[in-house]
């Protein structure tokens, strides 16, 4: 019962809809008739008798030979392709007036006043001989049926279905008004068919009305109408069209980039493709510690002559990563700074491009909102982009007044899903906290200065890192080589700002990166920090818990404010300046680094502390510069699986690598790995610094 009632209701709704449509149509039709009389009058001279058989003949001839019509238009078209074909066709296809009112309607207006048209008009009656007669004929017929049909029949209007249905439509609907009675039986049949078609059509028009967009009715014929050059141009230049091209080509490029062939039939041939693949690809390391280059991202238009300044994987979609770029000195009209979001499955074109008026020095996906991207600019601005919006930032901090006036090289979002802040740090030592909702003014500001015994006050942070657990404590690496612990707020024993009691001295040149151990395992390794520096080394530190620093300060006992210097646990001396180093997000002993010579190195401290376990250099771009273009700036791990990492450098290419099962991936993680890292750290602490030059 319930179901039945539902059906009835649905039918009622449909009926109402039909009525509404009809009214709408009627109003359209009345508007239309004003346009069509001229054409109708053109065709009226052709004699049409209200004879059924003759109509059939006409119909048949129409169905079989639509050609004459188009031929005749073709004859005219060589004369000039201006707006002429429109007028010809629209005049020729009178039987489908409604059709034209939709598609060619606008061109009516243009075509008629056009000065060079008379020729066209003269030929029209000739071309329409076949098509037109039915309509006057039917006009005559249609009245008698009015009794039955006027109420529940929409006026004849179809966006041309198949030519058959079109004719049926024409035959029956117009006769619906004037047809003599003997034809009635026959007509009933047609009517039934038509009813279905019209319902279908109504559905289509409903969509049309609701969407405001034209959708082809399912059975519509292909229209043999060439657009004029102007029309095509106008359409191509519309923003909508560009949008479409942008979107659809992305889809297609992804479809084409899909390397796996789902139709491969393994029974047919045994190609040893895999072996070749192994040999050809850019591979480093061996066996289970292999590193393999899987993709390179470079966009001819946007990556050209820019340097990669930061890389970050999307925390939500592990196929997306962003890269920020500095300016392209040869393109003064392009935005200085850009951020490109790359898709693993789309190599030579970014999924999104975001702009800024100043070089972007750092950018990051918001870990709390997959659509938001934050960035720091050379101008001192903090910017916020939204992947749902256009390329301009949706929010940015003002250039003057509060906030930063120096380049922002480090930025982070800390806190929880419900309460998080953007923390930015500029090279003059200013640290600001912002809410994502309002970038017009910082929520908190702080100035980092050198702790007291220093001769000068200025502290120039080059990098910043927050531990996993504590959003109020962070480390900054400075230009002079020391790493300072800082507090965001006053706390017991320490004021907000640089903690004067502890400093991590070891690097002799600017620190390029600091990275806390991600430590998602059975043993807490969250106090291990990796730093890289231009002094050709990477150092491993054990950071003291922020609250406990006062309790265990060894150094010069009894002297308040005395600084305790912490020396690194491990020192990895390299052969070139090291620009970045990052812990693997899943393997406790694995980290990677990139250096000025263009090498990506993978280390596993549980295996070897003197040598990298694998190294690889991104394959050079074919058209790239050969000199001084290899240096790599940044490295980022894909955080969810820990299998892929991306590097970027001076030549603007972002290269993605995949590591073997011993260096990444969550499949075979063992608890021993954590304990062996812990043991290693304990041993070093007990024995003393191993090999550190400090």
């Amino acid at each position, binding site marked *: 019962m319930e179901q039945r009632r539902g059906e009835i209701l649905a039918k009622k709704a449909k009926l109402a809809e039909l009525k509404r449509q009809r009214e709408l149509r009627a109003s359209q039709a009345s508007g239309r008739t004003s346009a069509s009389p001229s054409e109708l009058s053109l065709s009226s001279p052709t004699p049409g008798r209200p004879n059924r058989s003759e109509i059939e003949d006409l119909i048949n001839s129409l169905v079989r030979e639509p050609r004459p019509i188009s*031929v005749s238009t073709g004859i005219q078209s060589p004369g000039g392709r201006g707006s002429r074909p429109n007028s010809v066709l629209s005049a020729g296809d009178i039987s489908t007036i409604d059709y034209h009112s939709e598609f060619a309607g606008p061109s009516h207006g243009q075509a008629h006043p056009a000065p060079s048209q008379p020729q066209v008009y003269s030929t029209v009656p000739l071309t329409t001989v076949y098509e037109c007669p039915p309509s006057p004929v039917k006009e005559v017929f249609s009245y008698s049926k009015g009794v039955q049909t006027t109420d529940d029949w929409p006026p004849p209007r179809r966006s041309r279905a198949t030519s058959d249905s079109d004719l049926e439509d024409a035959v029956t609907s117009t006769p619906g008004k004037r047809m003599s009675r003997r034809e009635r039986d026959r007509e009933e049949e047609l009517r039934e068919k038509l009813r279905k078609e019209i319902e279908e059509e109504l559905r289509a028009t409903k969509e049309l009305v609701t969407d405001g967009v034209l959708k082809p009715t399912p059975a519509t014929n292909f229209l043999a109408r060439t657009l004029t050059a102007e029309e095509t141009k106008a359409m191509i230049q519309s923003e909508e069209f560009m949008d479409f091209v942008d979107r659809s080509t992305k889809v297609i490029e992804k479809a084409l980039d899909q390397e796996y062939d789902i139709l491969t039939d393994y029974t047919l041939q045994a190609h040893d493709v895999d072996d070749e693949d192994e040999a050809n690809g850019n591979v480093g390391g061996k066996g289970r510690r292999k590193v393999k280059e899987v993709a390179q991202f470079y966009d001819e238009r946007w990556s050209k002559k820019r340097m990669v300044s930061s890389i970050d994987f999307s925390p939500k979609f592990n196929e997306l990563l962003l890269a920020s770029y500095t300016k392209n000195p040869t393109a003064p009209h392009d935005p200085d700074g850009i951020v490109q979001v790359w898709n693993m499955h789309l190599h030579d074109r970014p999924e999104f491009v975001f702009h800024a008026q100043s070089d972007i020095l750092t950018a990051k996906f918001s870990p709390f909102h997959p659509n938001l991207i934050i960035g720091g600019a050379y101008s001192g601005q903090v910017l916020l982009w939204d992947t749902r919006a256009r390329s301009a930032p949706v929010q940015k901090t003002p250039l003057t007044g509060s906030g930063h006036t120096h380049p922002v090289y480090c930025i982070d979002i800390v806190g929880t899903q419900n309460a998080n802040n953007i923390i930015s740090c500029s090279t003059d030592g200013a640290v600001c906290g912002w809410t994502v909702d309002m970038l017009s003014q910082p929520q908190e500001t702080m100035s980092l200065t050198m702790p007291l015994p220093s001769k000068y006050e200025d502290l120039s942070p080059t990098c910043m890192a927050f531990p996993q657990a504590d959003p109020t404590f962070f480390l900054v690496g400075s230009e002079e080589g020391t790493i300072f612990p800082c507090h965001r707020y006053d706390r017991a024993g320490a004021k907000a700002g640089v903690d004067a009691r502890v400093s991590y001295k070891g690097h002799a040149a600017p620190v390029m990166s600091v990275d806390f151990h991600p430590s998602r395992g059975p043993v807490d390794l969250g106090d291990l920090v990796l730093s890289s520096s231009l002094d050709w080394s990477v150092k491993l530190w054990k950071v003291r818990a922020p609250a406990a620093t006062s309790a265990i300060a060894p150094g010069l006992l009894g002297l308040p404010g005395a600084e305790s210097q912490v020396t690194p646990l491990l020192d990895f001396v390299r052969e070139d300046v090291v620009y970045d180093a990052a812990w693997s997000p899943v393997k406790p002993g694995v980290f990677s680094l990139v250096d000025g010579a263009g090498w990506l190195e993978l280390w596993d401290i549980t295996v070897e502390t003197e040598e990298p376990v694998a190294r690889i250099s991104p394959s050079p771009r074919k058209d790239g510069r050969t000199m001084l273009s290899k240096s790599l700036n940044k490295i980022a791990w894909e955080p969810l699986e820990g299998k892929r990492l991306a590097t970027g450098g001076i030549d603007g290419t972002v290269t993605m690598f995949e590591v073997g099962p011993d260096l990444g991936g969550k499949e075979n993680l063992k608890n021993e790995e954590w304990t062996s890292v812990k043991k290693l750290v304990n041993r070093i602490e007990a024995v003393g610094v191993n090999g550190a030059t400090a």
Partner: protein
Amino acid sequence: MSESALGAGPDALEETLGRLSKKPGVTAALILDRATGAILKTSGQIDSIRKNKPSAAPLPAQTAGSLTGEPDGDDGASQDQGADELAAMIWNFVATAGSLVEDLDTEDELKLLRLRTKKQELVIVPDAKYLLIVVHDTPPA
């Protein structure tokens, strides 16, 4: 949606299509108006897609016939004609596919068509107003 491609208007269009056709295996790209089937843009060798020209396929023969009639008058328009015919066939194919989807579920919408043949593949992206068709050779299976 970035403004990147919108930046330079027609240039960007050429660039995007150019890059698409430079991809390995891609033979042609075609943009049609979804409502009328009018060709808005072509690139690549449309001609090479249809191997059997004289014997038009049975279904679109009728419609393509009315279509071919038009450029007949034009002498140098044989290539246009090829493109027109192809457009007509594809357009009919999409319309049919679209009606199938609609018949299954009126709320539903056609999003992507990949027509894989032994020799090539047609990737069709239907949109509310336009159709993008890219033809590419598939690697020998």
